[in-house]
């Protein structure tokens, strides 16, 4: 065996990321570097910038209690968005989370009024959400139906379910046993914030540190390659929708605890806020790319925006315009990233 052809590839220039390539002009180099920084930390920078801006404009913005206010108000959207991140990572979408939230919130209060202990009410609400997620996931994964259609249907029938469970009226329960989840404090921190952080730590762990997480990225990156690698694509996809459903269930329970009642109208159009937070956080709608940490920042940006507009006494109608523009901007950022890559 001669070694004559072995190293034929060696003279080819092997670009090493992070090192200044000799042939590149300085201007291009700066652009690439900037792009990388933007990719990694851009959205965090946006959040910081917004906080600074708000602190200057509204003097009562930068206080601990207002910080808690923002995070507590954003926690429900953040929890929905956490589950949504997994779904979008697999190239899917879950439009039903807002309606699912309403059903689960109502169910948890119904359980309480029928005499169940608080812990059962909480777990029951989450379980119901997970079950509806399972239904979505099964239809998407095993029947191959488009996630958009499946969850659009669920958005409607779950809203109907929430109304029919309560005859269309709010279900007031002043003695709600788990209301601490809404207004309680743990070491001075509002409980919804603690719950939200727990959700994020859990999902971060799942995505970054487990086999399941690797498989989610693989499926989102290339479903056919995932299948041919021996990944149980359908089962993993189903689990993703179950997680999104469970997050909706948990958010529903928190919502009920906050308003001390079961509201069949809860969570309307929340799915869109959740999607916006995910995309703001840098997760690609094309799947396979994104992190749950980014979603948390995305949700906080939306929270700061709402809170800031409120403090600045911007009328509600204009608040909607600004929020809508932010959602469009988020998608524009997403497509810009793809444009850059090609």
């Amino acid at each position, binding site marked *: *065996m*001669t070694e*004559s*052809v*072995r*190293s*034929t*590839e*060696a*003279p*080819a*220039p*092997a*670009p*090493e*990321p*992070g090192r200044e*390539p*000799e*042939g*590149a*002009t300085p201007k*291009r*180099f700066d652009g*690439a570097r900037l792009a990388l920084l933007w990719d990694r930390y851009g959205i965090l920078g946006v959040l910081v910038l917004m906080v600074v801006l708000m602190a200057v404009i509204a003097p009562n913005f930068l206080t601990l209690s207002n910080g808690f206010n923002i995070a507590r108000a954003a926690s429900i959207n953040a929890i929905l968005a956490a589950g949504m991140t997994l779904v979008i990572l697999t190239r899917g979408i879950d439009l039903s989370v807002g309606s699912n939230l309403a059903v689960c919130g109502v169910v948890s209060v119904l359980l309480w009024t029928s005499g169940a202990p608080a812990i059962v009410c909480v777990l029951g609400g989450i379980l119901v959400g997970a079950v509806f997620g399972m239904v979505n996931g099964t239809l998407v994964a095993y029947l191959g139906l488009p996630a958009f259609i499946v969850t659009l249907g669920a958005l409607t029938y779950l809203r109907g379910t929430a109304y029919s469970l309560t005859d269309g009226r709010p279900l007031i329960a002043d003695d709600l046993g788990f209301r601490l989840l809404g207004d309680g404090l743990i070491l001075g921190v509002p409980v919804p914030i603690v719950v939200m952080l727990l959700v994020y730590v859990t999902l971060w762990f799942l995505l970054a*540190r*487990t*086999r*399941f997480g*690797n*498989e989610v*990225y*693989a499926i989102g*990156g*290339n479903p*056919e*390659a*995932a*299948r*041919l*690698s*021996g*990944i*149980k694509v359908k089962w993993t996809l189903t689990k993703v929708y179950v997680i999104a459903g469970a997050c909706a269930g948990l958010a529903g329970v928190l919502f009920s605890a906050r308003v001390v009642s079961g509201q069949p109208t809860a969570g309307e159009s929340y799915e869109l806020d959740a999607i916006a937070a995910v995309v703001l956080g840098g997760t690609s709608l094309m799947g*396979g*790319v994104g992190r749950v940490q980014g979603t948390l920042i995305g949700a906080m940006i939306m929270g700061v925006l709402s809170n800031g507009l409120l403090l600045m006494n911007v009328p509600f109608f204009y608040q909607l315009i600004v929020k809508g523009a932010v959602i469009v901007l988020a998608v524009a950022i997403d497509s810009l990233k793809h444009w850059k890559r090609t």
Partner: protein
Amino acid sequence: MNAPTSPPPLLRMARVSKSFPGVKALTDVTFDLRPGEVHALMGENGAGKSTLIKMLAGIHTPDEGSIEIDGRPVTIDSPNRSAELGIAVIHQELNTAPNMTVAQNLALGQEPRTAWGTLDRARMRRDAEAKLRRIGADVSPDTVIGRLSVGMQQMVEIARAVAQQARILVLDEPTAALSEAEAQRLLELVEELRESGMGLIYISHRMEEVYRLADRVSVFRDGHWIDTSDRADTTPESIVTRMVGRQLDDLYVHEPHEPGDVVLETRGLGDGAQVGPVDVRLRAGEVVGVAGLIGAGRTEFARLLFGAERARAGEIRMAGEPVRIRNPLDAVKLGIGLVPESRKEQALFLDLAVRENITVSGLGALSDLGVLRFGRIAELVRRQVESLNVRCSSPQQHVRNLSGGNQQKVVLARWLAVQPRVLLLDEPTRGVDIGAKHEIYKIIDRLAKEGVAVLMISSDLPEVLGISDRILVMRNGRLAGEFDHDEATEETVMLYATGVAGDGETDGVPDGRRAAVTKQGEAQ
């Protein structure tokens, strides 16, 4: 190098350079094209051919140097400008609107209108027929283009180029995805276009095509122009030597292996339609090559074995025991791996790191209760990257940024990491440069020595003959012949693949294919 011709060449690129962040893609390249010639560009992947034609297509502009057409300097800063200058590029990835008809595609951007301003469908159809007739393409203008074979779609693109009075036609690996018969027609068309005075730039890795068509051959290596010579003054060996930059005396790796027991056996395996019944035995430690024409059912057979498609007939046995393979996961659990035909679409996760790409099939052993053990992962990835010589900046580098050969090594590493008993390779060296090819052959050889049964599908006949212990020939979804390493020749294998020889079942072989092969035989 080449004597200056008295009239200015059709196209001249002088001292052209182009850099991308991190790579100098072209350095000081000089190149010219005369009317009525076919000028072949040869070079390994990454030699700079694609960059050069992208400049002609108006996708990239040169950093330095000049481009002249008919002796006049031009700037090609957009695809539109390129078309205005009479340049047409037929890319490897076709540029058609798949859901529209042939006529609509041919009229794209210049649709004829009636006096009312509405689309003049009748004229569009007539125009299309005329355009197709000019290049002798036998296609109905009403066919939806996505339903046509790749070869016919290519014809339509060429018809469009001719209709737009292109004077410079660039063909980038035009025969890569074509059947034998389609390829023959394309080559004939290229010859006709040359007669008509068009200048053609022809990129191909297939030496016989280059030798049949080219008037001149330019060799590129690592972004440098090496030389240009008349075809008559050069030999395939010398071209390859210049492409590689050194003597190429031992590309194929074959040391006879000592086959062990039968690891995998199929009996009457088939998909109930195009493939089967097929009886195959794979023994531990042997390399079995599968030759055949495109469409002979080789890929489909491998996918049946791997569970990527459900088998409808027959059985698979491993070590004598019948096994059920309903999906790829079953196959992986039984120790079967598949390196599929197109690595980007079917094997790789381009936006994930080398590490994740290598470990994806073996996560079970790399995790405890589903939690990844990064120590074990790092160790395994390091070992694979080292032993397969994967050139990456780190295991965290995205696979998208690797060269074709290194991407293929990542796919191989994925399977080596789970220590398979049977490895199915479908066109493992397609789109890989010669240096990496040699490395892949060495990996295959090493696997066989370690006792893995290797089944390698390849359309590169010298490759199949060069590295296989045993060669199976498939035709019409069945085995048409079987040869030992020593008794197989390109001619006999082709005869069996095309149905001229074999078990007498010549029915169903399209006449065009047989004719094409006969013609090729005559040419040799």
